[in-house]
């Protein structure tokens, strides 16, 4: 403290001395404040230089400055991200300088792996979307923010459930059986995206309102720095942060939504159904009821939702901070479906020692509570007999097993008196009051008798220290310590009187409890050296680092029966008691199983950026990844990349080309890997697995748990994808039109495939091994047009187009031309039927079906197919590859129109050349489903039966492969801003949004956009109306 006072005294002395000086030289001090022209926030650290000299100062923490000047001195104010401003000043005055944010400057910085980069220096294919351009509306899953905005990125949500996860594919999938999901890096922490038990999507733990930028690294030159996890692209999410010198700002965002079903499946009404049953199954007409129930109407609802986020941003002295709290709650359009989420997000990013040490602390907490509806109700609502009522109120009699041993006495009680919870249920028609074991269940009962809840807690946090060496400011050291931890649990209860789990002998009902803990720890360290070598007109930027990541998880679960009479022991989970009438309480002891597992990833990486003459840019990266998932012989992999970019516009010969504002050519090559092969953490180890209690075996009088040696491939390793990318970034007329074109080729080798091994050589018939090759070729185009750009009228239209072609080029170790491939695409109906086949020379997941023969009336003829191989018989050999689920072309369009206080935006997407197998029709558009002998019971069918008049199912007919090209208007939004309300202290914005406004398609089913291409029991996407409020203080 003493020293501090001394220091202050000294400063005073100097100040006095300085104060005397101007009097002598006619000089005087000018004082002033520098502010942001937009939000009037003061800006600290602005550099102020007297023009033509080396004299200068910087603004203090409050944005103030003082400097001695001569009369008519010109001061130059400059600050990163702002346009430089020159002001002529006089001594002894005071001024306010407003700096304008440089129009393109902020966009110019993009985050890349282990660093940031100026967009103009980027050599790879990288697209960043910031919060201003995000999709509007009530969005729970962050992927929804950028849906349709980026060429080459397909985002398909899994259905209409609230908070449903989305499938993200960057430039088509590079794998067949391994994961095709990109790697997510959130504030520098690569997160584990493998799913959290009880969570609808692992990404839901990030509140979209907290996201600042969403950056997609598409080509290998950008992603290879993430090595063995980068084959399917990398998505880097950064969250909002506070800024030094900004005043406290409070922001509230509220959304209120109403989701309603758009389209349901056209099934027979009660009258038509009755008529058909009487006509086709007259012997069973007495099974018809007298009600008229629209089961789909009974299970869907208009669903309300809300979303609130309160954010505080500002800086306390040198400590910029941002804190936000969010809460959202949304019902599903399927009754009993609900998701609720609470998030807390905190970010602190102070700098110390004159910005030499920058500290970034991020903390995110999310609690997700779900109530899952039984989605079986979706299929059941299509199939359930419309002549039956929802409730019956009937009590069924006790039922005894027949007199089997001929002693004149009925045997075991099979069924005590029950009313099945009051719901109507199919009872066996042979005079017994036993519920039908198979067949569809009462859809309303399915929803109402099931309790399925989960509770998920997750934290993601990291501390990042970035130190610029005092003695060598060109060198930076960066240490990042991260933690991603979740704990979740859930419970499923179905009472024993629910007819579909009715089993009085064993208690019946369902009781499942599950718990999961996940922990993912990260340590990254890198050194970065950046130096301008002006003598040779070069800049070098070298980075080398090391990363260690540990993934640990443990699942435990217990499964048992459940009844009204059960009490779960609160002390010992897994033990419960049941009251039997007239019997003492019986205790059931179910052993919870506990399955922990872990993996490690250790990596060394480096990058060299070399810039010559500011227009020739070279990037080289190398990563050496080691994973515990593979054997010591195969666990290390080397992933290099090289890229070159040429800013042609900066060449002297382009000087006079004024129409162009950007013109850069990019060429990139790189190798990436995929280690997430969906085969657990030890696929290379010979191991033994213990059976569960239902797969024991009796030897003598004892039941033994069995131990099974598992099949394995000691040499298994990652897939490798080599990507070649050629790109062009362009801009015209001062960037009123700008965009990019990319052409790419991605070859995946050592494709992990599940193939049959020679019988007898391994401990299974199929083994996962590296055998195949796969190729994706494509073309991407993005264009942004600022049609109007004035202070009153602003209109920007973004358009993107993607063409992707996927082909399997190798599947087996030996090149047997007769090898058909690997069946995939399991469907509903029959057992074990597949409609897709992965074969060499075909796109992945191509449909594999019979060619339908049509009659003169244009209707398909049941069971008649083209004898394609001409052998006179219709056998499996006549099946052929026909179409595929992936689209050839993808388009996205978005528009933002701003006129005075009004904003009008929309965004939409189109897919062309995508086909869907209509499993709803192949299963339900057949007359034989009207009467099901295995119950027996009656079942409804879909109206499309009239198109075919099929009696029996024709699952493998190409008739059901239908063109599902579509255009979807994802989002239309109109908002009005009320600036400076409450005496100018606050701004208010009101927004009305329609999400999933309309779809244009020829496809007959409920929705043409089906991930995987098999349409069955699809949770329909609702149309959602959202009223949004944004209030800023």
């Amino acid at each position, binding site marked *: 403290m003493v020293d501090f006072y001394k220091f202050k005294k000294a400063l005073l002395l100097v100040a006095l001395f300085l104060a005397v000086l101007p009097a002598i030289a006619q000089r005087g001090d000018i004082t002033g404040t520098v502010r942001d022209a937009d939000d009037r926030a003061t800006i600290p650290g602005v550099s102020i230089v007297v023009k033509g000299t080396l004299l200068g100062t910087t603004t203090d923490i409050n944005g103030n400055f003082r400097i001695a000047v001569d009369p008519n001195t010109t001061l130059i104010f400059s600050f990163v991200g702002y346009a430089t401003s020159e002001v002529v000043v006089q001594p002894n005055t005071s001024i306010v300088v407003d700096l304008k944010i440089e129009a393109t400057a902020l966009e110019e910085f993009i985050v890349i792996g282990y660093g940031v980069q100026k967009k103009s220096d980027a050599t790879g294919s990288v697209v960043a979307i910031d919060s201003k351009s995000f999709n509007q509306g009530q969005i729970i899953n962050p992927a929804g923010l950028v849906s349709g905005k980026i060429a080459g990125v397909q985002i398909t949500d899994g259905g209409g459930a609230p908070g449903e996860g989305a499938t993200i594919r960057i430039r088509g999938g590079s794998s067949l059986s391994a994961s095709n999901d990109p790697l997510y890096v959130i504030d520098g922490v690569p997160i584990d995206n493998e799913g959290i038990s009880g969570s609808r999507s692992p990404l839901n733990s990030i509140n979209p309102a907290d996201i600042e930028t969403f950056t997609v690294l598409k080509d290998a030159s950008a992603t290879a720095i993430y090595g063995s996890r980068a084959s399917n692209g990398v998505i880097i999410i950064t969250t909002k942060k506070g800024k030094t010198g900004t005043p406290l700002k409070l922001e509230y965002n509220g959304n209120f939504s109403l989701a309603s079903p758009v389209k349901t499946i056209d099934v027979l009404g009660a009258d038509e159904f009755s008529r058909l049953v009487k006509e086709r199954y007259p012997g069973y007409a007495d099974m018809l009821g007298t009600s008229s129930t629209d089961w789909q109407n009974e299970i869907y609802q208009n669903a309300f939702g809300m979303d609130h986020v309160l954010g505080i941003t500002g800086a306390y002295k040198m400590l910029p901070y941002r804190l936000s709290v969010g809460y959202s709650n949304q019902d599903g359009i399927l009754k009993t479906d609900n998701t609720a989420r609470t998030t807390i997000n905190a970010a602190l990013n102070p700098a110390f020692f004159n910005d030499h040490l920058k500290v970034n602390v991020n903390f995110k907490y999310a609690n997700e509570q779900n109530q899952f509806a039984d989605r079986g109700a979706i299929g059941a609502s299509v199939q359930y007999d419309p002549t039956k009522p929802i409730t019956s109120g009937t009590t069924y009699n006790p039922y005894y097993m027949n007199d089997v041993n001929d002693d004149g006495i009925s045997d075991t009680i099979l069924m005590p008196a029950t009313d099945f919870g009051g719901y109507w249920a199919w009872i*066996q028609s042979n005079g017994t009051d036993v519920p039908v074991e198979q067949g569809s269940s009462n859809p309303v009962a399915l929803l109402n008798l099931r309790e399925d809840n989960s509770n998920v807690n997750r934290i993601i946090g990291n501390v990042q220290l970035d130190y610029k060496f005092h003695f060598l400011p060109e060198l930076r050291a960066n240490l990042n310590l991260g933690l991603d931890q979740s704990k979740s649990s859930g419970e499923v209860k179905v009472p024993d009187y629910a007819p579909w789990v009715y089993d009085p002998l064993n208690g019946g009902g369902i009781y499942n409890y599950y718990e999961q803990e996940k922990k993912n720890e990260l340590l990254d360290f890198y050194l970065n050296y950046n130096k301008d070598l002006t003598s040779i007109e070069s800049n070098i930027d070298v980075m080398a680092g090391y990363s260690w990541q540990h993934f640990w998880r443990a699942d435990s679960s217990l499964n048992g029966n459940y009844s009204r009479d059960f009490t779960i022991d609160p002390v010992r989970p897994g033990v419960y008691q049941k009251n039997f009438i007239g019997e003492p309480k019986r205790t059931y002891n179910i052993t919870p199983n506990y399955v922990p597992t872990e993996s*490690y990833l250790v990596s060394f990486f480096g990058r060299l950026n070399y810039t010559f003459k500011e227009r020739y840019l070279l990037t080289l990266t190398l990563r050496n990844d080691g994973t515990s998932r593979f054997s010591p012989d195969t666990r290390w992999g080397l992933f290099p990349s090289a890229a070159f970019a040429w800013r042609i516009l900066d060449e002297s010969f382009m000087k006079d080309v004024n129409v162009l504002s950007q013109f850069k050519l990019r060429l990139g090559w790189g190798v990436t890997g995929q280690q997430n092969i969906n085969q657990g953490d030890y696929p290379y180890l010979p191991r033994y697995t213990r059976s569960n209690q239902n797969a024991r075996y009796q030897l003598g009088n004892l039941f033994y748990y069995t131990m099974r040696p598992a099949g394995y491939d000691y040499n298994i390793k990652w897939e490798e994808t080599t990507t070649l990318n050629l790109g062009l970034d362009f801009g015209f007329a001062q960037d009123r039109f700008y965009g990019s074109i990319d052409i790419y080729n991605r070859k995946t080798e050592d494709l992990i495939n599940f193939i049959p091994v020679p019988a007898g050589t391994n401990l299974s018939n199929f083994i996962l091994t590296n055998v195949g090759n796969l190729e994706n070729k494509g073309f991407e185009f993005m264009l942004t047009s600022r049609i109007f750009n004035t202070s009153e009228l602003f209109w920007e239209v973004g358009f993107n187009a993607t063409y992707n072609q996927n082909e399997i080029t190798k599947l087996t170790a030996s090149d047997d031309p007769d090898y058909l491939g690997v069946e995939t695409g399991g469907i509903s109906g029959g057992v074990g039927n597949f409609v897709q086949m992965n074969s060499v020379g075909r796109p992945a997941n191509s449909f594999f079906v019979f060619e339908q023969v049509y009659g003169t009336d244009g209707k398909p003829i049941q069971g008649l197919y083209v004898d394609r191989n001409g052998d006179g018989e219709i056998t499996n050999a006549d099946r052929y590859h026909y179409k595929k689920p992936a689209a050839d072309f993808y388009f996205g369009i978005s528009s933002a129109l701003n006129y005075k206080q009004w904003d009008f935006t929309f965004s939409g997407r189109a897919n062309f050349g995508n086909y869907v197998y209509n499993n709803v029709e192949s299963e339900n558009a057949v007359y034989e489903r009207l009467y099901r002998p295995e119950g027996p019971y009656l079942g409804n069918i879909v109206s499309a039966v009239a198109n075919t008049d099929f009696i029996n199912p024709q699952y493998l007919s190409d008739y059901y492969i239908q063109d599902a090209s579509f255009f979807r208007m994802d989002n239309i939004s109109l908002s009005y801003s009320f600036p400076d309300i409450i005496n100018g202290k606050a701004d208010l914005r009101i927004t009305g949004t329609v999400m999933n406004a309309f779809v244009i398609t020829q496809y007959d089913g409920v929705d043409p956009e089906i991930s995987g291409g098999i349409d069955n029991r699809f949770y329909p996407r609702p149309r959602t109306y959202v009223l949004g409020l944004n209030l800023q203080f």
Partner: protein
Amino acid sequence: MKKIFNILLLAAGLFVLITSCVKDLDTIPLDKDVVTAATVFEDPAAYKEVLAKLYAGLAVSGQDGPSGNPDISGIDEGFGQYLRGWWYHQELPTDEAVIGWNDQTIKDFHNISWGTSDVFISAMYYRIFYQISACNEYIRETSDSKLDERGVTGQLRTDVEHYRAEARFLRALSYWHAMDLFGNVPFVTENDAVGAFFPQRIERKDLFKYVVDELQAIEDKLLPPRSEYARADQAAAWALLAKVFLNAQVYAGENRYADCAAYCNKIITAGFTLHPAYRNLFLADNEQCTDEVIFAVAFDGDATRTWGGTNFIIHAAIGGSMIPADFGFGGGWGGTRTTSAFVNKFPSETGSPDKRGMFYTDGQNKEIVNIGEFTDGYAITKWRNVKSNGSGGKSLDFPDTDFPMFRMADIYLMYAEAAVNNAADINQAVVYVNEIRKRAYGNLSGNINAGQLTMDFILDERARELYWECHRRTDLIRHGKFTSSDYLWPWKGNVAEGKAMDNKYNLFPIPASDVTANPNLKQNDGY
């Protein structure tokens, strides 16, 4: 100087940090239910637990009952269960059974028109070789040198030597199935460690010799008859030897009826007889029929659950107006029935006087017009999940009923067949056959004399006694009636009146996927 020291220290520190982190990559499974092959036998109990898996390979489809964590892939787990596959192959192509479902190529069985990519045939084939591979692994892990290495001595050593012989029995059993269904197959023994190689092809006659040699080699190493329920003992090996000798003409072109009779006699001498009540052999408590059953595949409503096995056999047979509860189940799967050709082998369809004719005729048509319609063709009520005292099994979904793979009636009939082929005492044979007839009729009215004991009679009697027990296809082939026009049944060859089929169908094809994967293999003739 100090600066350099600091830098060196930092470098050394980083080096230690990094190398220790690199060591993190050497992980072992944390799950106590997953044990590496290197350590599994540190627990002496593991010897019997791994052996139990070899038996369970016949009964369940994976490590989670009834499904989940399957042993083999590429097929619905229930379809891929060993016994269900064996049943499909032995019953569906014959007069004894039809199935009404739309599952993939299942109708090709009764049509006798299967192809080389048939998933059901592949599943059976790979099931067999899964079982063989697992047995090989066990035999390798229980070699004398390995046991010495682990210091296994005393009672455990004695036990493990029995276990090892049982593993060899189970391997021989599966090789018998391979020989019967596929003929010329890949051949792997404990000498072929797990890895990437192409197994040699073995000809059917050489495989016959191998199976016989193996069984004779372990005959004395197995436990004496009836030592422990569901374990393969000496009687099981004798029964299997009798079975392969009976079919030696088909398998190896050799007449071995005398050997067949000799092994039948060993079983008879060991004290096996007929269980007094025929129906009890197929009920939920049939594990009590140890007087007759020589080797069974065990199922249990709680502990041993599968979508295959007797669960399939019982469930699939329930449909139409049948009351599932009478079979100890909550419902039926409405699939399997029989043809009129089979029904006609009985004096009547009412179970009188031959009580073995257990048909359900109420609402069922005797003749089949549409195989897809459950009510076309009489249903069979032989298999049930109900105990002999009338009470139900442990579960309404999964039966307790065990599957007798070898039982005494079969042995008697094998003896009789040897006798008709002049390899055993014909009078003794008549006595044995009449034992069976007496049980069936409840009196002596069904008895036959030596003159009536012909090959045709034996084939029919085997059908009446052993139907739906996975013998039929083998029996028809041995008697030359499977593909030929000598004997036609409804919908044989996919025509209502039945037709002769190509002789190639006496063997199933080697699945195309294995012909692709293993260049040493050759497709069976005609495919």
